């Protein structure tokens, strides 16, 4: 168990070949499972600090104030441990097939002979990511979390930009990194505020030990809100950035330019839920700062709807999945936002974590399916697919399972977790409940739209474009699909409420049958609608799109958020801040310095007439100069 970080660190430095990476990850998987299961089996849900070494010491500010690195095990980190290692292992496995030579050469980003290098690079990045993600989930303190938070950001950047000859990929990677960096700024400021008052970064101390500091923060008001509220909101901004909450969501759809397994791992299952994890980790503090919880709820609920709406109108399958991811994470966020101890003992917290867990499984599954399809069809566009259930039956079934799960159909995993979320939402406020139910219905709709468009709809003429007919993906790729599908079917039955709660006490709430039934009905309505519209090729969708042209286009263009961002960054920041500053620097500041030189030169030229070469003017200057000095001195004296 103690070898954990060390093991990961060695992985980081190696240029691992695929198998080696997978084997390494397998080892991690085993260790991770052992750790988590041992922890859960121990019966006590009290957090354990396995390792905690001082990294940077700030004892000059306050005793014991330091940035530590360590391993922290509690129910949620153990759960995340399982999620991360599982998905990561499966994705490694899958990548062995996906990132084969043919694929790399297709993308043509390596000069001849460099293919192998790209393969290694891919696995190195992937391992780096896994390492960072594990570091993040096992963080003992908020600063360690920030450290690994940044690291996952960078690995995400590197992996999105993996096809570095593709301008879109570069652009997407930049966008992803900068957007999350911007959010991290909020996180950092939040940390700074928090740490200033509490003089600690440690989670344990923050949550339990420094109540007096926290109450000081609550008491200190800044611009109408308590400082704590500000701090927590700032930290949430960080989380929102990573978890692609509106309005910081713009990077995630673009991030799909990366290799699909990466999307599955990072942009569906693990990294993007870091924001949720962060909020969950600091949940007791959020409970004190209720204002920020309301912010969280509003942001989450809006994003859920917003992303779902966009997902309905996308054609790129990965984009649809991406928006679906945003929407689902928003579910989790909302769930945290609505959780209060007084409602069903804070079921929202558990629900959120549960959904995180199940979502990781089925969304990874869906992405891997998408990857398999793309692998064979060589396109992301749903318009170029259709009728694939014949060619790729396993993928089709896995996809169906995933879609059912995300729609919340019993007995698939999503049913259980989403159900809890809705319970929590209704408990907080019926309005939130209704809203989230509606979004759940939309989810069912667009997911099945995707499913039908890819696997049914119409069969395009694959041979016509000179491609081979698609066929089932190789074993290394299908195996993870199967594993995940199976997992999706069964994990819903895990007794989450016994383990994962914000106060480490098992939950006693039962199921709310009204919510269960209503949500299932809504999901079925969504599925039904999708079936009607997209099961077979017809022109109803086109008609509908024409009927609401404006709305459709807006949704298709993601409500122009990207354009807005582009406008702000390029036109406002670049054009009106950077360029003027650069100009100012060259023209004014530098100009001033050059002006000194020019003035000196000009003065030099101007006074050269005094040196006229004629001694008569010399002596005139001599005498008049002397007299002037004398006169001035006399005047001084008088």
């Amino acid at each position, binding site marked *: 168990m103690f070898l954990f970080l060390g093991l990961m660190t060695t992985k980081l430095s190696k240029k691992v070949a695929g198998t080696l990476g997978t084997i390494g990850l397998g080892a991690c998987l085993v260790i991770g499972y052992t750790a988590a299961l041992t922890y859960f089996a121990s019966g006590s849900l009290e957090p354990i600090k396995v390792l905690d070494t001082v990294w940077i010491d700030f004892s000059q500010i306050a005793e014991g104030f330091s940035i530590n690195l360590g391993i922290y095990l509690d129910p949620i980190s153990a759960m995340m441990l399982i999620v991360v290692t599982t998905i990561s292992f499966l994705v490694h496995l899958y990548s062995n097939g996906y990132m084969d030579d043919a694929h790399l050469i297709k993308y043509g980003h390596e000069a001849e002979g460099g293919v192998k290098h790209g393969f290694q690079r891919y696995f190195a990045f992937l391992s780096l990511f896994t390492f960072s993600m594990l570091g993040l989930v096992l963080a003992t303190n908020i600063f360690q979390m920030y450290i690994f938070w940044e690291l996952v950001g960078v690995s995400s950047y590197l992996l999105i930009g993996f096809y570095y000859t593709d301008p879109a990929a570069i652009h997407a990677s930049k966008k992803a990194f900068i957007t999350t960096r911007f959010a991290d700024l909020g996180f950092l400021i939040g940390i700074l505020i928090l740490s200033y008052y509490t003089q600690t970064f440690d989670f344990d101390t923050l949550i339990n030990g420094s109540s007096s500091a926290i109450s000081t923060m609550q008491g200190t008001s800044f611009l109408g809100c308590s400082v704590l509220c500000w701090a927590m909101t700032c930290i949430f901004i960080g989380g929102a950035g990573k978890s692609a909450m509106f309005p910081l969501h713009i990077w995630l759809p673009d991030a799909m330019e990366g290799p699909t397994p990466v999307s599955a791992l990072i942009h569906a299952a693990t990294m993007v839920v870091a924001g949720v994890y962060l909020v969950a980790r600091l949940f007791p503090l959020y409970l004190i700062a209720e204002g920020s919880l309301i912010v969280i709820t509003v942001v989450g609920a809006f994003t859920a709807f917003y992303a779902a709406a966009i997902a309905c109108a996308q054609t790129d399958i990965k984009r649809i999945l991406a928006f679906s991811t945003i929407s689902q994470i928003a579910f989790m966020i909302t769930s945290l936002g609505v959780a209060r101890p007084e409602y069903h003992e804070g079921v929202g917290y558990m629900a959120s974590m549960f959904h995180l867990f199940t979502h990781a499984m089925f969304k990874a599954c869906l992405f891997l399916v998408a990857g398999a399809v793309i692998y064979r069809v060589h396109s992301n566009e749903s318009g170029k697919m259709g009728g694939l259930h014949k060619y790729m039956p396993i993928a089709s079934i896995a996809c169906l399972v995933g879609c059912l799960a995300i729609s919340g159909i019993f007995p698939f995993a999503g049913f259980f977790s989403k159900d809890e979320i809705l319970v929590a939402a209704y408990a907080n406020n019926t309005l939130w409940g209704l809203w989230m139910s509606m979004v759940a219905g939309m989810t069912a709709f667009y997911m099945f739209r995707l499913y039908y468009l890819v696997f049914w709809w119409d069969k395009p003429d694959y041979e016509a474009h000179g491609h081979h007919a698609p066929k089932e993906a190789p074993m290394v790729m299908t195996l993870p699909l199967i594993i995940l599908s199976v997992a999706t079917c069964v994990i819903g039955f895990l007794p989450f409420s016994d383990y994962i709660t914000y106060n480490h006490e098992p939950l006693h709430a039962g199921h709310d049958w009204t919510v269960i039934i209503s949500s299932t009905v809504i999901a079925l309505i969504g599925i039904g609608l999708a079936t009607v519209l997209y099961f077979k090729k017809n022109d109803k969708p086109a008609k509908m799109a024409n009927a609401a042209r404006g709305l459709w286009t807006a949704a298709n263009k993601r409500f122009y958020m990207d354009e807005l961002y582009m406008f702000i960054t390029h036109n406002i920041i670049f054009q009106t801040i950077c360029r003027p500053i650069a100009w100012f620097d060259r023209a004014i500041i530098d100009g001033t310095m050059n002006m000194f030189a020019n003035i000196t030169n000009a003065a030099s030229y101007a006074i050269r007439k005094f040196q006229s070469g004629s001694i008569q003017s010399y002596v005139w200057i*001599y005498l008049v100069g002397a007299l002037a000095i004398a006169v001035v001195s006399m005047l001084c004296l008088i």
Partner: protein
Amino acid sequence: MDYSQFLMMPQELGLLLVFLLVFLFDTFLPKKAQSSLSIFTCVVFALFTIANVFMAGNGTSFSGMYEQTSATYAMKLILNAGMLIVLIQATKWANSEFVAVRRGEFYELLLATLLGMYIMISARHFLLFVIGLETASLPLAALVAFDKKHYESHEAAAKYMFTAVFSSAIFMLGLSFVYALAGSLYFNDIAVNIMGGQSALLIVALVFVISGVGFKLSLVPFHLWTADVYQGAPTAVTSYLSVISKGAAAFAFLVILAQVFGSAYSAAWEWMLYAVIVLTITVGNLFAIRQRDLKRFLAFSSISQAGYIMLGVIAGSEVGLASLMFYVLVYVFSNLAAFGVIAAIENKTGKVNMDDYNGLFKTNPWLAFSMMLAMFSLAGIPPFAGFFSKFFIFVGACHTGSVAIYVLVLIALINTIISLYYYLLVVKAMFIKQDECVIPTFKVACSEKVALIITTLGIILIGLASCIYTYLAEAASNSSAMFMFIH
């Protein structure tokens, strides 16, 4: 009548002896032996310089007309060192075809002017001072006109002569006013008689006196002759003019200000001197920027250097005196190194334009190296001596501690940037400009090489070896009686 008093001035007598020896050698030895006159002079003068070490002594003679203190002694030593280098440097030129016929006169005049400077430094009576001043300047006019081939030499001599006589007329007019006020020309008497007095006549007198010495030191606005004369005069004479003559004048200036007018010191004068210093440094620098002729360029640079030297004068303290002497010493070495290079190249190729120096490093690396060191030293770049002298002169000036002087020093410091600019222009021409150099690779004459080695070593070592400054500081503090009227 006590003629033994002459023995109180051994340095002057020694120099007179050297002068006479050279004179006799020149007059009576056969033509064949004449060619060794240069070496003879150098050797005799070197011996005299060494002998000087044993001529230290303090005290006044001729009833206060002449004074030898450890400071004047040290100053004369510095002048001797400079003179020796000039003599060595000039050997090549003095033996050249056109000059050889007048070789003897050249050395005699040089020695005579040096004697004048000795007198100037040690004089404590204005009549003696004037004689010293004139002895130091009139024969120089003849030296300036030495290069008969070149018209510029004559023009320079005429300019020098006319302005010098004008200046001495003004100077003596000032002296007549001083005499009217004090009734004596002995420095001590004057200081006592005008003590605390503040009158218009005193100011006019002071300004005129300052203008006379400032002329030699080329302070603005009395500097205008400098550039033309430096440019026109033979390089050996220019180098002599720019260092020895200037150094002696600086010392004399300090003596006059401290020992004569120190007793009637007032704020009005302070401002007057500040203005002169600021003008001198700035104007010198501004003119130097545009110069392409290296001798003219160094003339303007020397004007601004005079301004820095003046900072040591206005300090009016032992520290200032020590810094001043040190500055002069360093300046002697730095400037002579520069002139040594210029002379070497001029003697060989006749080129003195900065543009001709483009790419000099490729053809004559050692000359370029010496020149660069000289430039860096003049600009005050460590670890070369110029840095130390500049730092000490600033410290010396700030010793008085008024805010105004800090402002003055700041202006001086800002001016060092301008000066650095033009010194770097020379460095740039030699090292950075990639053009084909018009100056071919040549072998530097032995005498010039010796002089260059001495000056280069001086530039490097004078700053690092603190004993030199320490010695001067000791000499200055032993002569603190100079400043009795100021403190």
